[in-house]
């Protein structure tokens, strides 16, 4: 998303702040929604390649975390059922059901509910004006959300998130992150934009957008389920082991850059890589040598299309 878009969102936020809080007249988002992946498709469906941090405003700490992250960590039983946090879950494959909960006596809107088939997550967006909990309350995958309408646009503020990731190749999101979402309905298209602020791992807000299309019919029950039972996947692993690469010694650290012929400075991310001016930097940067061609008969993982979203 460009700087212009960020500015536009800032204007939206300023407008939103000026309207009465918890106004309860706005678009009805109820229904079954399915995402479209035309935007950022390689990142969202096949999944990101290792050490691809392009366009992420990460700091050095996030970069070291990601460069040390070994995907084998997800084989640990305690990591196998790890849920995508709400700032990420809308990016992946999911079916989304939205409905409203109203006070039966007054018909005031109490909450808007989101059920995501991925990880069977039910998210509550409180619309009744309640405050966010204090700093000692637990954090959850979906966080604690409150919403308000600005005209027909729903604005949601979320806190109390668990530690997660902003890209599922190990780029972290801390439990101090906060998210603001903007949801707009145009007929049967739902536009969802979020602004993520993370004082631990991001130097600037991360802005992402995605679209959903309303389904005209209910989906089979099984498509809504996500059952996760952790098992022992690597029997020889010593108890307490946490797979990680030594800092600076990621065995595939240059693979993404070489495969796509991108300069190292671009794939390692950072706020500068989000902006158009960075194209000039890239023109002057050194392109690494391409990966060697596979041996005859060999099957090489090409990245796109090889992985399925967890």
């Amino acid at each position: 998303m460009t700087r212009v878009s960020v500015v536009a969102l800032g204007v939206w936020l300023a407008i939103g702040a000026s309207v009465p809080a918890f106004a309860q007249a706005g678009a009805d988002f109820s229904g079954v929604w399915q995402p479209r992946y035309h935007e950022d498709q390689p990142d969202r469906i096949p999944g990101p390649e290792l050490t691809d941090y392009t366009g992420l405003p990460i700091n050095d700490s996030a970069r070291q975390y990601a460069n040390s992250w070994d995907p084998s960590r997800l084989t640990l039983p305690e990591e196998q059922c790890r849920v995508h946090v709400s700032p990420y879950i809308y990016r992946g494959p999911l079916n989304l059901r939205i409905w409203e909960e109203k006070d039966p006596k007054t018909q005031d809107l109490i909450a808007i509910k989101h059920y995501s088939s991925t990880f069977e997550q039910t998210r509550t967006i409180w619309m009744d004006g309640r405050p966010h909990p204090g700093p000692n309350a637990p954090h959850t995958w979906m966080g604690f959300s409150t919403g308000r309408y600005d005209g027909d646009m729903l604005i949601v503020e979320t806190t109390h998130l668990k530690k997660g990731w902003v890209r599922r190749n190990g780029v972290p999101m801390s439990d101090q992150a906060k998210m603001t979402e903007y949801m707009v309905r145009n007929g049967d298209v739902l536009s969802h934009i979020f602004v993520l602020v993370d004082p631990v791992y991001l130097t600037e807000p991360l802005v992402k957008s995605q679209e959903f299309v309303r389904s005209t019919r209910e989906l089979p029950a099984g498509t809504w389920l996500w059952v996760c039972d952790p098992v022992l996947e690597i029997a020889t692993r010593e108890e307490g082991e946490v797979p990680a690469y030594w800092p600076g010694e990621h065995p595939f650290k240059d693979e993404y850059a070489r495969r796509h012929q991108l300069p190292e400075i671009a794939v390692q991310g950072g706020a500068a890589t989000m902006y158009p001016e960075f194209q000039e930097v890239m023109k002057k940067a050194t392109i690494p040598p391409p990966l060697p061609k596979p041996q005859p008969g060999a099957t090489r993982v090409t990245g796109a299309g090889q992985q399925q979203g967890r």
Partner: protein
Amino acid sequence: MTAIQTGFSRRARVLSVAASLAVGAAVAAATAVAQQGQNFDNVQIETVKVRDDVYMLVGAGGNTTIHVGSDGIMVVDTQFAPLSAKILSAIRAISDAPIRYVVNTHLHGDHIGGNEAISKAGRFRAGGNVVGDLGAAATATAVIIAHENVLKRLSADPPSGQPQVPFAAWPTETYITRKREFLFNDEAVQIIHEPNAHTDGDSMVFFRKSDVLATGDLFTTVMYPYIDVANGGTIDGYINALNAIMDVTVASNVNEGGTMVIPGHGRLSDEQDVVEYRNMATIVRDRIKEYVKRGMTLEQVKAKKPTLDFDPRYGMDTGFWTTSMFVETIYKQMAEANPPAKPAQGKNQQKGKSE
């Protein structure tokens, strides 16, 4: 280090935790030292309901856990002495039942400071020969339970110039085995010792029916693991303790909720929060261990920034337990346990994995 903005300011957090834990090195003087220069007048005790019978009290010291029921009240850790009246007031807002037990997770003053006042506000159940031998003293106060090593250290001569922790604040019942367990309030209570972790006298308290675990400083959400070497703490023991916490806790099928974890400091947590913390501690320990094996000096290890990825979340540049001290402590313990390999061997250099 980049300052992070949380619900409470980082500076306030650092000062609070530092003041809370700075007492570790001087055990006998813990309470007195911790109280110096700290004004408790404006401290508010926040009560967080964890489960029907279990509450977390957050003040200025370590978190306090309250368990209430038909048998009475159990108090796990008592914060600083000057906060006792506020702690008691918070307890009475929950229940008027008698305080029967005080349990100390370890010996630091921010966890035992209120022992005397809170135990004296309670009374124990006793009869038969116990009352016959001890008279009214047998039931005059709540029992104070801790691991034997807590009593040993509190009752030892304090460092020169430091006051002794009052006798009335010492544990009245100790245990030397891995675990002590009993039924209280129709709840199986397990007091589990984790050796040589934060200190050498650490206990965590598991309320089995309520499915709540109070960890003491074996787990916090606010800082790097504090290894109190002077009182028997080790990084390996600390990581073992974190894994032991994960053995006790059971998450829901989406790695959230299930067993709730009351940390020594910080917010109410669950197993997944402990997993993240365990991962951090293990990764940092393993990095430094590897660097020691490669023959690196402490300065070389520091130059490698082995905590860079976690510093904005847990690091401190000032105070009693800085990031630098954390690294130095691990380095020293790894160097003692894993002497560096002789030069030119380099057999571990291609491994590229944490162990």
